């Protein structure tokens, strides 16, 4: 029965109260541990399609009569176009439609960052569209850009009000503490750079708009387009069957979608608008840079009595203030905490959510600070973290729905115990060391999310839901859940997704929410279908329904009878059984979070500043694991992406002009296979969260990137004594830190 409830919804650490219709199926969680299919490694259902190039991405689609759009972007960080002359462009070969500044709200003659969209042209080929863009004449009035976040704080140039948080009395605790450490950390701007560039194809069929788009949120794209263009939502159909990476940058429709929609309307033909790699590095979102001024105070026994932080985020011209102070507020049991976060508005490209936004940056600062504190206290860093274990959510004063971070620490011990042996392998200028960092982040998912499960006369199962698989293996995890519930082999299940017109509402694939949001809905739908199969079998074979169950592809009776599912459902001939399922609410009055710890081993060449990450052990508590194989891939991917922002990735802005200097994948250094640690160990506590849904599963997309930078920086400190304060840890930064460590050793010699 449909039930209307009021509940709290969280995405990427942002909460809102929503009304929600749930049609929840009260199912007991499966017992802990691997089941027949859930909890056992499964190859991707769509692995062969993706690997062999059969999978069709938005980039591969070609509609009849399709035109191609190119966008003219501002070459200046702050400027306005005094004169725009498109007359030569209009005459250029192949041009079919032009959008001038102001024709749609996303195109403007007033440019406030390098790469801001100004106008757009559709032509028969992309080359013709780009050539026509080059014929547009613009006279710019160039203004002085604001790119320095400290100056922005002084001028109070903010995107939103500074966010202040206080509990307890920090000043008093600082005054009474035995030990105080204070440090400043900086993180750089990082660009998502998914390999499939942002793009959309728009086609009008009468008053209906079809949008083929590389997206993480089919329904969000639908709603935003409908809202912006004043269309009824059901007049917008959004399709994304395969997508080539997003990492947070594809949570909504970008300018390119609105450009394609309007050009398609004007030209009367479908239009593709795809970003180039260089546009991808200009105007597709980024993880914004931060400055973090942090203080921690402790008693001599290691109890942390105060944490204080000032966080300045270089958000850019748009975006939102990610919760960089979150780890400081939530990771440790500290009674006195005070944070202030400034989201500065600058003449730089807008930020977008990027894999654990705020927490990845904030954890780097906090976990480096903790190790500085451990050194001052002469306390083992792992022990310091245990002594300050948070047993409830002090920020919101509520219990955790589950927390097994202590078990993560316990499992970290054998990896942590390698440090004497690792240090002993230091050789010449290559010094080796071990460091760790904890992980905290959201990832409980939430309602609404819906799924259907069809069982046909051939006994095959089809999961139908209009979600997207962004590469995390969602199709496979959902198939495992349905197969487990229906007692059929995995190869009998297929998953149809990716089309708002052909499936029920499904959640965003962001905020580590896909599995915890969708999985319970799929299980409920499978249970509904299974119940119907048993009802049919009970009547056909004259059994009491309570004596029947599903297993091994059969309806089995407690009296020993068994019938193949296809024989039971076959009675329907060409019709199918349809099960429906919905995601229920999250537990009320509880905080649902994910936890973990990473132990990194590094080698540092103290002469050149080169860092090699030799091993990372990643231990996470994310509730029940559905697919251990896919889960290990998620962890490795998070670790490797984390190594990118720790050691090499850096979006470079010219401080004088505000222009972006790193626009290609030659200048912007993504990690390669050669940068990958020879060994990444993934471990999971794998205990279902007893309070969370019918699965007890949390999300895993983001947790593994969170502690990487802190663990590596702390390993560098262990290896060399150098305190790193800045990401990326370039050779320049490392040589500076080594110099500072040598100076400190001269000033205050310590016994080894």
């Amino acid at each position, binding site marked *: 029965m449909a039930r209307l409830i009021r509940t709290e919804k969280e995405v990427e650490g942002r909460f809102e109260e929503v009304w929600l219709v749930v049609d929840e199926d009260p199912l007991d969680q499966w017992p802990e541990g691997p089941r027949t299919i859930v909890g056992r490694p499964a190859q991707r259902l769509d692995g062969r399609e993706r690997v062999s190039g059969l999978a069709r991405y938005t980039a591969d689609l070609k509609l009849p009569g399709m035109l191609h759009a190119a966008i003219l972007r501002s070459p200046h960080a702050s400027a306005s176009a005094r004169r725009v002359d498109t007359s030569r462009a209009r005459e250029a070969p192949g041009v079919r439609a032009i959008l001038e500044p102001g024709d749609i709200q996303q195109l403007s003659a007033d440019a406030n960052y390098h790469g801001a969209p100004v106008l757009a042209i559709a032509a028969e080929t992309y080359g013709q569209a780009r050539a026509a863009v080059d014929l547009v004449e613009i006279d710019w009035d160039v203004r002085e850009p604001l790119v320095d976040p400290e100056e922005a704080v002084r001028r109070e140039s903010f995107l939103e009000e500074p966010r202040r948080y206080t509990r307890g009395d920090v000043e008093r605790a600082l005054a009474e503490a035995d030990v105080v450490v204070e440090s400043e950390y900086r993180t750089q701007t990082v660009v998502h750079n998914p390999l499939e560039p942002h793009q959309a194809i728009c086609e009008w069929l009468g008053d209906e708009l079809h949008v083929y788009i590389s997206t993480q949120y089919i329904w969000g794209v639908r709603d935003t387009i409908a809202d912006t263009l004043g269309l009824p939502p059901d007049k917008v159909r959004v399709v994304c069957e395969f997508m080539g990476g997003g990492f947070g940058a594809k949570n909504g429709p970008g300018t390119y979608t609105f450009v394609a929609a309007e050009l398609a309307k004007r030209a009367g033909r479908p239009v593709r608008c795809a970003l180039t790699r260089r546009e991808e590095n200009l105007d597709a979102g980024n993880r914004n840079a931060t400055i973090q001024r942090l203080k921690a105070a402790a008693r001599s026994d290691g109890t942390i009595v105060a944490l204080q932080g000032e966080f300045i985020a270089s958000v850019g011209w748009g975006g939102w203030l990610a919760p960089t102070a979150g780890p400081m507020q939530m990771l440790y049991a500290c009674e006195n905490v005070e944070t202030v976060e400034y989201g500065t508005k600058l003449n730089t490209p807008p930020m977008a959510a990027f894999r654990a936004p705020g927490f990845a940056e904030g954890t780097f600062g906090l976990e480096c600070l903790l190790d500085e504190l451990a050194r001052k206290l002469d306390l083992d860093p792992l022990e310091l973290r245990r002594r300050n274990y948070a047993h409830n959510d002090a920020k919101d004063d509520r219990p955790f729905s589950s927390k097994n971070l202590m078990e993560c620490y316990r499992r970290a011990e054998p990896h942590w115990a390698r440090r004497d042996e690792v240090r002993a392998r230091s050789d010449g200028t290559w010094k080796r060391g071990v460091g760790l960092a904890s992980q905290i982040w959201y990832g409980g998912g939430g309602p609404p999310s819906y799924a259907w499960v069809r069982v046909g006369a051939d006994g095959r199962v089809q999961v139908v839901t209009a979600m997207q698989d962004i590469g995390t293996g969602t199709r496979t995890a959902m198939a495992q859940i349905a197969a487990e519930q229906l007692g059929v082999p995995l190869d009998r299940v297929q998953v149809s997704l990716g089309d708002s017109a052909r499936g029920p509402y499904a959640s965003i694939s962001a905020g580590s929410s896909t599995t915890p949001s969708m999985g319970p809905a799929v299980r409920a739908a499978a249970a509904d279908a299974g119940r119907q199969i048993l009802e049919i079998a009970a009547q056909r074979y004259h059994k009491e329904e309570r004596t029947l169950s599903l297993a091994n592809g059969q309806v089995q009776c407690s009296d020993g009878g068994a019938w193949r599912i296809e024989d039971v459902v076959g009675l329907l001939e060409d019709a199918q059984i349809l099960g429906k399922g919905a995601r229920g609410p999250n537990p009320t009055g509880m905080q649902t979070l994910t936890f973990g710890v990473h132990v990194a081993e590094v080698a540092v060449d103290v002469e050149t500043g080169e860092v090699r990450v030799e091993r990372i052990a990643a231990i996470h508590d994310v509730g029940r694991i559905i697919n251990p194989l896919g889960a290990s*891939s998620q962890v*490795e991917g998070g670790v490797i992406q984390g190594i990118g922002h720790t050691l090499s990735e850096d979006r470079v802005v010219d401080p004088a002009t505000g222009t972006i200097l790193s626009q290609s994948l030659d200048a912007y250094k993504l990690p390669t*296979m050669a940068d990958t640690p020879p060994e990444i160990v993934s471990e999971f506590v794998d205990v279902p969260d007893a309070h969370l849904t019918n699965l007890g599963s949390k999300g895993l997309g983001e947790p593994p990137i969170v502690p990487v930078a802190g663990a590596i920086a702390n390993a560098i400190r262990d290896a060399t004594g150098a305190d790193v304060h800045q990401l990326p840890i370039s050779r320049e930064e490392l040589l500076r830190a080594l110099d500072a460590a040598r100076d400190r050793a001269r000033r205050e010699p310590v016994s080894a």
Partner: protein
Amino acid sequence: MSELTINGHRYELEAPVGRALADVLRDDLGLTGTKIACYEGHCGACTVLVDGVPTLSCITLVHSVEGREVTTIEGLRDHPMIDAFVRADAVQCGFCTPGQVVSAVALVEANPTPSRDEIRHAMSGNLCRCGTYTKIEEALASWRA
């Protein structure tokens, strides 16, 4: 008129001077398994084999491969490397993966038992933003299993 041999089939087509092989494959011939992710030779997603040598098709002019054997991912569908990638879960979003497979095939065809260093060297030109490198290495280490 250009004559091309792709995956063992001969094609005759009109391609303007300056047209990239990747555009001919994807737009003119519908062989969309080859991906374009940077269009300037930095990422490896567009890798194809030209006479068995891994080649960046986005910065290769189509006229320069006339009379030579071009092999795309579509020509490698029966290669055991495909299974090796699927088994090892050496794929996430999959956009770089066809290019990875092509580079991997080029390596093992020349050297069926590559060392770890040889794998890392040969595969470093193929970027993967999802970070599947660990699993790709596994796939190459066990491709004939």
